[in-house]
């Protein structure tokens, strides 16, 4: 009886079956010897002590000889044969695990690559849009317009200030002229007073000469001329006073007030253009930063995707290990079938044993870790990368 079968038998046998084990060990040789000697086997002393012959199943051997197997042994053999079916089911499970993990790994990678494709497309779109000729032209045009606007505003402010200064100068000149005219009016007044005095003196002299000289008419005309001159000087003085008031109080005040208002508006306009210019520069800066950020984020996506691609290799490593387990199961299953055939058909015992199966499994491992685990040792630390 092969050692494995013996171990299995001991595992499943009840205490009262110990006798049966002996019987099994001795039955086959005894049956073979009997078949060789005579048609009727000699009485077996052990068999006489056993239960009736009905418990023993005669089996035809390959040489058309008969040997008998106890039913419990036959049941064990059937159990061993059914192991092939069990192994087949387990192998189906392992194959399913391989298929499903491979499908899942491909899906994960595929989806990750789809995401990468979408992000890459988005990055390209943003970059292309931000750097498109139309946008760059619009930005340049806007900047140029702002610069032109600032220049125009500066010119306007300068021109306005110059005009205001000229107006103030002109008004100042008008006031100076007005003062000069007042001075001239004073002189005219002096002349009027002198003329009036001259007219009075003339009349006195003419009165001393007597009537009908005709000179009194001239004196009267001179006095009337003096009166008209005084009146004219008075009117001029009044109008000059009004003109001074208009120029000094009204016009200059309005010009100053307008200047303050215009200056404030010009400053507002200038500030607006200044802010527009500043914001344009900020906008360009943000735009450049946005492009940089988008491109950087796109680049940063590569690292986790690469890590994912590295990690997904576990599926191939696991698949190979499962395939090895499946092959090992086949080996053990074949071994059990060989053992069963040896028992039932009286075939020669299989060349292989569990020990040789294990040796074969050890020889066919693909990973050092598997060999180390098989031997119960720590795995040797060979370098993972070696360039020859």
């Amino acid at each position, binding site marked *: 009886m092969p050692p494995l079968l013996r171990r299995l038998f001991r595992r499943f046998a009840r205490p009262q079956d110990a006798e049966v084990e002996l019987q099994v060990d001795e039955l086959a040789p005894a049956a073979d010897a009997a078949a060789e000697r005579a048609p009727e086997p000699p009485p077996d002393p052990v068999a006489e002590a056993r239960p009736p012959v009905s418990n023993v199943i005669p089996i035809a051997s390959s040489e058309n000889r008969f040997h008998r197997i106890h039913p419990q042994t036959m049941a064990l053999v059937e159990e061993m044969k059914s192991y092939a079916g069990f192994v087949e089911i387990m192998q189906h499970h392992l194959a399913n695990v391989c298929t499903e993990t491979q499908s899942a790994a491909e899906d994960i990678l595929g989806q990750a690559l789809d995401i990468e494709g979408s992000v890459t497309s988005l990055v390209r779109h943003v970059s292309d849009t931000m750097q498109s000729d139309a946008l760059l032209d619009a930005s340049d045009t806007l900047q140029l317009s702002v610069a032109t606007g600032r220049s125009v505003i500066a010119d306007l402010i300068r021109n306005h200030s110059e005009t205001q200064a000229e107006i103030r100068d002109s008004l100042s000149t008008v006031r100076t002229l007005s003062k000069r005219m007042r001075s001239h009016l004073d002189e005219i007044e002096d002349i009027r007073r002198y003329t009036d005095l001259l007219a009075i003196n003339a009349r006195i002299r003419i009165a001393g000469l007597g009537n009908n000289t005709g000179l009194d008419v001239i004196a009267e005309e001179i006095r009337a001329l003096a009166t008209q001159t005084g009146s004219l000087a008075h009117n001029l003085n009044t109008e000059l006073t009004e003109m001074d008031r208009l120029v000094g109080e009204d016009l200059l005040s309005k010009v100053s007030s307008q200047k303050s208002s215009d200056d404030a508006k010009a400053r507002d306009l200038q500030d607006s253009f200044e802010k527009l210019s500043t914001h344009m520069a900020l906008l360009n800066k943000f735009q450049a930063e946005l492009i940089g950020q988008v491109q950087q984020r796109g680049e940063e996506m590569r690292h986790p995707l690469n890590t994912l691609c590295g990690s997904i290799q576990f599926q191939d490593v696991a698949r190979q290990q499962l395939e090895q387990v499946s092959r090992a199961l086949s080996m053990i299953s074949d071994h059990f079938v060989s053992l069963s055939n040896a028992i039932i058909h009286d075939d020669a015992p299989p060349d292989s044993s569990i020990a040789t199966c294990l040796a074969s499994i050890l020889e066919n491992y693909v990973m050092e870790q598997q060999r180390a685990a098989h031997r119960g040792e720590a795995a040797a630390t060979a370098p*993972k990368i070696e360039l020859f």
Partner: protein
Amino acid sequence: MKTVMIVDDSPTILMSMESILARAGYGVLKADSGENALQKLQGGGRPNLVITDLNMQAMNGIDLIRNLRQLPQTRFTPIIMLTTESSLDKRQEARSAGATGWIVKPVQPGDLLAVVKQMVPGS
């Protein structure tokens, strides 16, 4: 563009290696067996580097290397083994067959790219 040929019977490995290498700017030729790799090379493929698995059906990685060393276009092309196998005996066998290097799976993408860059000058 420098081209790397990947030979592996695992679709997962082919996909992941292609993704890593393409992202780094390499062109990628894929073959799911040694025979398929030889067909592609005979069809005009001229890779700057070959990365092959060891344990494959029909033609294993070492046999593939022996075949590649017979082809004029891959006689001097660097060939890296990418495999779960880590035994020193197998490494020695691959080296004798003409392998340039040995990488044990799973490999970190950064490590893989460093080796590829070293093997493919100017990349």
